[in-house]
């Protein structure tokens, strides 16, 4: 086996192993930290598959932003520094069955789609910004646009959910009845809470 293959197998083992630790650890913050290891190993796999740009984006978006957000949210909840008995749930076996089924579907799809595909490392073009951009904006432009609409919908939804000054929502309307109409949105929020 070549060096690249050995490295790839090692990184894959790290990714799978730390992913198992994410779901089995008893400390919820440790789960998020193991996720960092998983995502980092995955970025390494991308790098070995000559997808340099995707690898750095993986680190920038997932490790640098998503996991930080996750940790931020976890620390806002009750996240003790000792093992948490509440982290064990009787539904674990059911979750394991679902996870195994999803993994089965994904592996079958990947094997059916890419079985036997080989990257010739001597002649392969490194997937920098030019190659990746060309692929995204020509072959994959429709999925790209659909995804951007999905993200836009999520953004609009988040803004609608977090806005307090929309008058038609029942709780706000109720609160508004209790106070003088001249009060501004801040006062209304305070009186309703």
């Amino acid at each position: 086996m070549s060096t690249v293959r050995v490295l790839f197998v090692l990184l894959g083992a790290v990714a799978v192993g730390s992913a198992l630790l994410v779901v089995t650890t008893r400390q919820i913050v440790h789960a998020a930290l193991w996720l960092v290891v998983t995502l980092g190993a995955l970025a390494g796999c991308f790098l070995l598959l000559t997808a340099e740009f995707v690898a750095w984006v993986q680190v920038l978006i997932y490790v640098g932003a998503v996991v930080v957000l996750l940790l931020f949210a976890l620390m806002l909840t009750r996240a003790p520094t000792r093992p948490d008995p509440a982290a064990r749930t009787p539904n674990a076996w059911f979750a394991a069955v679902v996870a195994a089924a999803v993994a089965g579907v994904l592996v079958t799809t990947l094997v059916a789609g890419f079985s036997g595909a080989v990257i010739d490392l001597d002649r392969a073009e490194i997937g920098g910004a030019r190659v990746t951009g060309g692929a995204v904006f020509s072959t994959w432009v429709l999925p790209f646009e659909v995804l951007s609409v999905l993200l836009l919908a999520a953004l609009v939804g988040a803004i609608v959910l977090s806005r307090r000054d929309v008058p038609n929502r029942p709780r706000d309307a109720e609160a508004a009845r209790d106070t003088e109409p001249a009060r501004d949105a801040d006062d209304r929020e305070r009186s309703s809470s």
Partner: protein
Amino acid sequence: MADVLELLLRVGCVFVAFLVLPLLVGQTEHKVMAHMQGRLGPMYAGGFHGWAQLVADGVKFAQKEDIVPANADRRVFQLAPVLALIPYLVALVAIPLAPGLVGAELETGLFFVLAVMGIGVLGSLMGGWASANKYSLLGAFRSAGQLLAYELPFVLAAASVAMAAGTLSLTGIVEAWQPWWLLWQLPGMLVFFVAGLAELHRPPFDMPVADAEIIFGPYTEYTGIRFALFLLAEYAGIVVLAALTTVLFLGGWHGPFSDALGWLWTLLKAFAVAFVVIWVRVAYPRLRSDQLQRLGWQVLVPLALVQLALTGVVSVVIS
């Protein structure tokens, strides 16, 4: 074999730079702050103007007992300072001093540096949580909230330069750079610098470590060498930010006699930026959390977007 040796040599040089440059910045900070505040600063260690003060500090830190609080999460607590420091070492590898004078030439070097710099905050988050101390936890919150607000303008401002140069390679960006870009990319440069200061928790954006409110934020429980690693991470961060600002916005090695003295120009410009970082610390009071978020979302993000649009329009017009 020759390739491996060359790579080792390059990485070794970067490591030496990583050990020396943050200390130089630290010593400069001692002296510049002292002069700006009309006082002497450390004057005794080593004789001439206290030049050995940082070495003495290092010895002191190494001698101190390394304490882990009883309720802390030991492994995470001990790993946090390392995770705070390593990203800046890795980022330094990709920053070029002159054509060919770089740790590792990467086609997507800009993305690499930005991605790696974003990991550094994990160190303060881990430290803040694992300390089992409410002040540490509050500091970690502030740190994460600050990063989330400032990461976006930071990346957008950098993207503007990459768009203007038409490449993500740091060497390529400097080679495409022309003096009039100083004006064209000025808003982008300001956004990048300010957002970078906020990412490093440098004053006036040092709310995560505000000593009057939450002792020393995520680093409250740290002692000895691990505390020193956090401090070193801050100075290494200044070096990386200054070098990156130089390479992206100030033309790197462009200057008189740039064929022979290119690396000197890069270093001089980077030190000038580092000087401004120190100056800003002395000149401005700390921002409150609401002021900080407002500056991030209502000033820097729109400004970065305007810069991006401007870059796009001008690029199309001149091409």
